[in-house]
């Protein structure tokens, strides 16, 4: 049986001592959390199903550091590895895949130039193109354009707006419409982050996760807000996600991946243990 995937995410930035891992609280306040390669190895041993590295500086130095981190990780960790952060050209993708990554995650560049998704999936195959969709709920339905209605957990009618540049810039684009669009353009998977929840540890944004999962035929990775094993359980049951991504709850050792998987297995969710 196909299992639900648990994916730890490592936000990688460039420090004076080389690469380090940090996890943002609402992408702004950053707290350091360890060496990425060591963390990757630990997560692999604990039973992570995949790993995601996000280069949150996306600068030139950051990119070079990232290639080194990917190479060192891929030499020792034999599970799928996705890399994202500032990727906006086919040569970026090639460099990252050559270093040993299996997938790349494209975010802002896809919104700014959607043909990039089509080109990337044609050249490298859909299976290695993940489109990351960051979005935030919006109660304002005025103005033109598609706005698919979603009932937020507080009962309010909202639509979800795609945001870019790490959540700083709203785009006016409906997230559900965008999900179908990237599927059509050849994305193999969607990494969905609700900025309403990111960094809160209050649980995933279930309504948008579920809507998006039912809206498209490609797998959805739920992201943003995991604070407990129960939140991950809900992402799979209520949210219908295919995979759950989390950072803080694993980095600070609050829960191990194995503990989360045991929790899920006891409740009937298929996981690889």
């Amino acid at each position: 049986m196909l299992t639900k995937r648990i994916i730890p995410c490592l936000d990688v930035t460039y420090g004076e001592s080389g690469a380090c891992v940090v996890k943002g609280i609402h992408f702004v306040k950053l707290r350091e959390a360890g060496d990425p390669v060591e963390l990757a190895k630990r997560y692999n041993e604990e039973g992570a199903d995949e790993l995601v590295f996000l280069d949150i500086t996306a600068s030139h130095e950051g990119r070079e550091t990232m290639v080194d981190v990917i190479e060192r990780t891929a030499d020792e960790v034999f599970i799928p590895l996705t890399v994202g952060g500032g990727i906006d050209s086919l040569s970026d993708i090639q460099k990252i895949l050559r270093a040993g990554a299996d997938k790349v995650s494209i975010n802002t560049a896809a919104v700014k130039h959607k043909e990039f998704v089509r080109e990337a999936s044609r050249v490298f195959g859909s299976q290695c193109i993940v489109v990351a969709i960051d979005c935030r709920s919006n109660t304002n339905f005025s103005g033109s354009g598609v706005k698919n209605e979603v009932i937020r957990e507080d009962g309010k009618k909202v639509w979800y707006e795609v945001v870019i540049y790490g959540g700083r810039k709203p785009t006016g684009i409906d997230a559900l419409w965008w999900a179908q669009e990237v599927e059509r353009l050849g994305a193999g998977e969607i990494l969905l982050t609700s900025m309403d929840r990111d960094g809160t540890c209050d649980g995933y944004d279930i309504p948008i996760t579920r809507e998006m999962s039912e809206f498209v035929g490609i797998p959805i990775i739920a992201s943003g807000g995991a604070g407990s094993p129960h939140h991950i359980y809900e992402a799979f049951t209520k949210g219908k996600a295919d995979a759950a991504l989390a950072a803080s709850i694993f980095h600070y050792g609050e829960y191990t991946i194995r503990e989360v998987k045991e929790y899920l297995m006891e409740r009937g969710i298929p996981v690889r243990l």
Partner: protein
Amino acid sequence: MLVVVDYGLGNLRSVKKALEKAGAEVVISSEPSMLEMADGIVLPGVGAFRDGMENLSELSECIKREAEHGKPLLGICLGMQMLLTESEEGGVYEGLDIIPGKVVRFESKGNNRDNKIPHMGWNSIKIKENHWILDGVEDNSYFYFVHSYYARVASSYEVASCTYITDFSAVIATKNVVGTQFHPEKSGDTGLRILHNFVRECRR
């Protein structure tokens, strides 16, 4: 020495590193002379069938000849699919025809939101036949799959199956030729076990 066939696609580094971890000396090459010298050949693969076959071009004959002479050959994912007679991915295209069979697309039944395509993630395999490639691998072990098309072969070539939407071949094999639909190089320790078995067979 093992050769990982370089035909211009995919993440070859992972395959090479995983084979090295499994104890092999590995060269990435597209030279027929290297394939002839090798103790075993690995045909990796991501991407589309037609591009894969086109990129192989004249290497095709060399791979077929080496396999006929009994050299161990391992096809991974697209590399496994290319071992077959033909594929219906993006038209009908001829494969290497080392193992008779056909590559077909998953047909999503009913509400396709419950059967997402690609089949992506860790799934368990059902072992059907004893084969050296599965030595030390337990029934129902998990492997990492990513694919939208699957292999349909005669049951005599199927040594392990997997279920997603339908039952399909997870591992196909003859005496010396093996194909895995999953990625052993991305399937953690169980995947390394498969590669270790292949490396061992190449040393015989």
